[in-house]
C-alpha cells in the first residue's frame, strides 16, 4: 500500500522542504522505502537538502518524454531506503505546467511502487499546487507562528476545497453556480467554500453528497514550525479548532517543531540536521511528528482525471 503525503503551506520559507527531507530521512531510517518528489516546480531545492548535489535525472525528463517512465527518473540518495525525484535541472518554463502534462504526472505518481511518497510542494495556490494536494486524502500543511504565514495557510486550505468543488463541474455549470451564490449571499461570498456548498446542496444534491464524502475522508494535518520559546504552544490546536468551527473542515494538529538556529547551520553545511544535532528539541519534535504520521492510516487516491 502506498502512502502519498503532499507537504505544503502557502507561504515560502515556512520549512516545507526541510520538513519533507527530515520526514523522509526518519521514515527511511525506520526501514520504509520512501520517495521524495520535488514538486516545487521552478524553485526546486530538495536535492540540496538530501545531499544529491548533482542530480543526473529530473522530473522534466519525464514530462518532456526523454525518459518514458517516471520510475526511471528516481535517484538514489546517500541515505539507505530514501529515493528522490529531483527538480534541479527542470526546464525553465516548468512552473507553468500544462494541464495534460500535470495529469500525466499525477497518474504516474499514483502508480509508483514505494511505501511512502512525500511531495514537496511550492508556495502559493496555483492550480498545479492544489491538484497535487488533491492526489491524496492525506496532506500536511506547515505554517510558522506569524500572521503572514497563518494567513497563507488559511487561504491554501480554502483554495483546496474550492478546487475540489470546481473539479465536479464543467465550466458552464460552475458559472451558473457562481451567479447563484453571489445572488444569494452577496458580493464576495464566492470566496467562501461553505457558501458555495450550500448552493451546491440545493442545485446538485447528488454532487453535494459526493463532495461531503470527499471532505469527510480528507485527513489534513497541520504542523506548526519554528516555534520559539515565547510563542503560544496552543496556537496550532486553536487554528485547527477555528477551521473546524467556521469552515466545517477537519484538520488535525500534528505537532509543534521548535525553532533552532542550528537548522540554518545544518542547511549551510549541507548535512542532515537530524544526524548533526540529534539531541536538540527540534530533532525530537521531528521524530515525534514522524511517528504520529506513520501511525495515522487512511488511503485510496482521489484523482478524478479520467
Amino acid at each position, binding site marked *: 500500500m502506498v502512502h502519498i503525503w503532499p507537504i505544503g503551506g502557502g507561504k515560502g520559507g515556512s520549512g516545507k522542504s526541510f520538513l519533507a527531507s527530515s520526514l523522509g530521512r526518519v521514515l527511511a531510517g525506520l526501514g520504509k522505502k520512501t520517495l521524495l518528489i520535488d514538486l516545487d516546480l521552478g524553485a526546486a531545492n530538495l536535492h540540496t537538502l538530501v545531499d544529491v548535489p548533482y542530480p543526473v535525472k529530473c522530473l522534466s525528463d519525464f514530462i518532456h518524454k526523454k525518459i518514458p517512465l517516471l520510475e526511471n527518473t528516481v535517484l538514489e540518495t546517500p541515505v539507505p531506503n530514501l529515493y528522490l525525484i529531483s527538480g534541479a535541472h527542470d526546464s525553465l518554463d516548468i512552473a507553468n505546467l500544462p494541464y495534460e502534462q500535470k495529469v500525466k504526472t499525477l497518474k504516474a505518481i499514483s502508480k509508483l511502487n514505494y511505501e511512502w511518497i512525500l511531495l514537496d510542494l511550492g508556495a502559493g495556490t496555483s492550480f498545479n499546487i492544489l491538484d497535487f494536494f488533491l492526489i491524496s486524502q492525506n496532506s500536511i500543511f506547515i505554517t510558522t507562528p506569524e500572521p503572514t504565514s497563518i494567513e497563507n495557510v488559511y487561504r491554501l486550505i480554502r483554495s483546496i476545497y474550492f478546487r475540489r468543488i470546481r473539479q465536479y463541474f464543467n465550466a458552464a455549470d460552475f458559472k451558473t453556480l457562481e451567479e447563484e451564490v453571489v445572488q444569494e449571499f452577496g458580493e464576495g461570498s464566492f470566496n467562501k467554500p461553505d457558501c458555495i456548498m450550500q448552493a451546491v446542496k440545493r442545485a446538485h444534491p447528488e454532487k453535494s453528497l459526493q463532495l461531503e464524502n470527499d471532505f469527510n475522508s480528507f485527513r489534513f494535518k497541520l504542523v506548526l514550525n519554528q516555534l520559539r520559546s515565547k510563542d503560544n504552544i496552543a496556537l496550532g490546536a486553536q487554528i485547527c479548532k*477555528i477551521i473546524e468551527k467556521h469552515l*466545517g473542515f477537519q484538520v488535525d494538529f500534528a505537532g509543534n517543531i521548535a525553532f533552532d538556529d542550528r537548522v540554518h547551520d545544518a542547511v549551510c553545511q549541507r548535512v542532515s540536521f537530524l544526524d548533526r544535532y540529534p539531541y536538540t528539541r527540534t530533532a525530537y519534535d521531528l521524530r515525534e511528528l514522524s511517528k504520529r504520521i506513520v501511525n495515522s492510516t487512511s488511503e485510496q487516491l482521489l484523482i478524478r482525471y479520467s
Partner: protein
Amino acid sequence: MKKNFAKLNYYEILDITPDAAFFEIRHAYNAAIQMYRADSLVSYSFFSLEERQEILNLLEKAYLTLINGKERKNYDKELIQLGIIDNVGGKAGSKRSAGIYDASRQWGKAAVLKDSKATLKEKVAQNKHINEILSKQEISGADLKTIRNELGVAIEKIAGETKIRMDYLISIEEDKVKRLPAAAFLKGFIKSYLKCLCIEPLDDVCVRYMDCLARIGKNN
C-alpha cells in the same frame, strides 16, 4: 458541512456542554476571546472586520446569558422547548454546584512549568534512595546517573539546559575518566548538572565527586 456559526446555540458557540458549571463557562469565554479578538494570531485574516465584530458580539451575548443564573434558566427552557437539549441534562446543569475545588479542573501548562523546580526539590527531599546517595562520602558519576533517573529527568534536557556537550555528560555518568575535560571545567560542569537537578549543597557534593574521581584515577 457544519452549521453556520451564527445558528449555533450559546453552548455550542462556547464549546461547552449544557451542564457546564459557571467557572467552565467563564473559562470557555476567556479562551474564545483569546481566539477571536482583533489582535489574535489564531484568527488573523480569517474574518472580515464585520464578521469578527459579529462573532465577538455573539460571544458576549452568549457569555452574559449563561453566566446569569436566571437568564440561563430561561434560555435552557427555550432550548428544551425547541428540543435542542434534553430536559435532564439541562436541569442537572443548573443544579450542579460550581466548586472551586472541582477535581476535574485542569491546571494550565504554564503553572506546571513554573513550579517544575519546586517539584524537583520536593522529589529530592522525599526520595530515600537519593538521600542515601547524598549522604555517602564519595559520589561517583554512576551515582549522579542514578539520581537523575530517580528524578526522571532526561539527559537531553540537561544537555539543553546546561549547554554541556552530550559526550561529556555521558562520560561523567559512566565515569570514563580519560574522556573527561580538565578539572577546572569539570567542576563547573558538575555544578551546572547538580543545579539542573536542584541538588544542594552544590559545592559540597561537587567536592565529594572530585574526591571520588581522584581515587578512581589513582587506582587506574
